[in-house]
């Protein structure tokens, strides 16, 4: 098993499958009266969050606690970071406190990679800038596999703001590794030029959602990241919703078995309408539940044995 999980590219097909299989076993714990396993007793997991994220932080916290690890939550707001403490000094502090794993969310792409050089424990990337979010990709892959029974050969459309999306990047890498075909869909301004050879070979790009929908097994809607929209990537929110939003009529163009995913939080009415978000095809709530199981699997596989 790998020591850190920093990128979707860190996982080969066997390791990724091991994570998904382990997550399936971890999921059975959620249905038990005693939702706790002793596997990480005595280990310390630090959630180091430099960016606001309720969903991911709580998910990692629940996962670590279900494995009996001690959890320290560190939020940059109200901490010494606001007094000017550097990431390296924070890392050394965590090191001195004996953190076995650091789960890091940071606005700067690459911060978890730097952190991995400074701490002895495992580092898990919980989202760095516009770069990657590998556990989100794993939980998405887990959700697809549990709904559709397989990943190899699936056709997945990732729709929206690919340019700023760490979720998209990690998903492209992981899904390609696991044998799924990925088509990126969005306005030309929000899809990086020459993305295919740079990220993973065989990626298709389309600027027309309607032509893609009838041929996919999964449509993954991305959040329009208004906080990162410093330039005019598209004329207006209404225009975006009209071209790339998933509404009821569009959803009905999907094949019968196809599912709709969204990493959350959603802009209801913009990239997805309430009718779609709340339909039986939507896996949005499932994705949250699966997130805990997948993160349990990752923490167990990184910390459960003596890998070093």
């Amino acid at each position, binding site marked *: 098993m790998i020591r850190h999980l920093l990128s979707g590219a860190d996982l080969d097909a066997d390791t990724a499958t091991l994570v998904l299989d382990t997550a399936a*076993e971890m999921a*059975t714990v959620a249905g038990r009266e005693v939702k706790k396993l002793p*596997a990480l007793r005595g280990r310390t997991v630090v959630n180091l969050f430099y960016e606001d994220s309720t969903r991911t932080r709580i998910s990692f916290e629940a996962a670590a606690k279900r494995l009996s690890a001690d959890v320290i939550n560190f939020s940059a707001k109200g901490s010494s970071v606001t007094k000017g403490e550097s990431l390296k000094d924070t890392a050394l502090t965590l090191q001195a406190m004996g953190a076995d794993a650091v789960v890091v969310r940071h606005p700067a792409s690459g911060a978890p990679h730097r952190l991995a050089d400074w701490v002895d424990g495992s580092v898990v990337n919980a989202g760095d800038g516009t770069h990657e979010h590998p556990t989100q990709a794993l939980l998405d892959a887990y959700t697809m596999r549990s709904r559709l029974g397989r990943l190899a050969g699936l056709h997945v459309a990732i729709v929206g703001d690919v340019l700023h999306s760490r979720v998209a990047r990690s998903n492209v890498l992981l899904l390609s590794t696991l044998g799924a075909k990925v088509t990126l869909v969005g306005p030309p301004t929000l899809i990086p030029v020459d993305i295919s050879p740079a990220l993973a070979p065989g990626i298709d790009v389309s600027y027309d959602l309607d032509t893609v929908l009838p041929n996919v097994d999964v449509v993954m809607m991305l959040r329009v990241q208004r906080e990162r929209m410093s330039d005019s990537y598209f004329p207006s929110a209404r225009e975006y919703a009209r071209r790339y939003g998933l509404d009821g009529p569009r959803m009905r163009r999907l094949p019968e078995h196809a599912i709709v995913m969204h990493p959350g939080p959603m802009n209801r009415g913009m990239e997805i309408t309430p009718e779609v978000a709340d339909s039986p095809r939507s896996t949005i709530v499932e994705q949250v539940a699966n997130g805990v199981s997948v993160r349990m699997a990752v923490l167990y596989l990184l910390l*459960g*044995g*003596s890998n070093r």
Partner: protein
Amino acid sequence: MAYPPAAHSSPPRQPSVKVILAAADVSRVVDRIAHQILEKTQGAADTVLLGIPTRGVPLARRLAARISTFEDVTVPVGVLDITLYRDDLRRHATRAVGPTDLPPGGIDGRRVVLVDDVLFSGRTVRAALDALSDVGRPASVQLAVLVDRGHRQLPIRADYVGKNIPTALAENVKVTLAETDGDDEVKLYGGSPR
């Protein structure tokens, strides 16, 4: 000029292998344990067999099949994975987690018979008892093993033992079963012939 070895020096000892139970013996032992379970549980009513992976699982299935042949009662069989409850997790590379599969109706209020191939230090059984308490509350727990090789490190004792094999710590007991290994056999490796 080469000198012959001195007369008093013994040749290097080859690790010995001794078959303790052949296929027919394994079959007889399973039959006997099945009878003992029926006797001790007074007909195996409200009894659940839980196999501890890997070889405890086919053994539990065989016991259930034999019990059903002898007394025409169906004993539910499940699988109890103990990986996450081991006390040596940190001493080895990360172990893959296997499935825990409880029979319909669960184990609450029932008599659970844990089934494993070899009873040695007792640590696997301790882990199994911890795992059990997380998945339910059985009325009682018993332990059935194909082989007891001794050297207990915990105060644990089996209720049903196929064969007691006195061993040295340096020796190794290896159980193979048709379902997992192709044939039924119990072998003792590394010891002097008994």
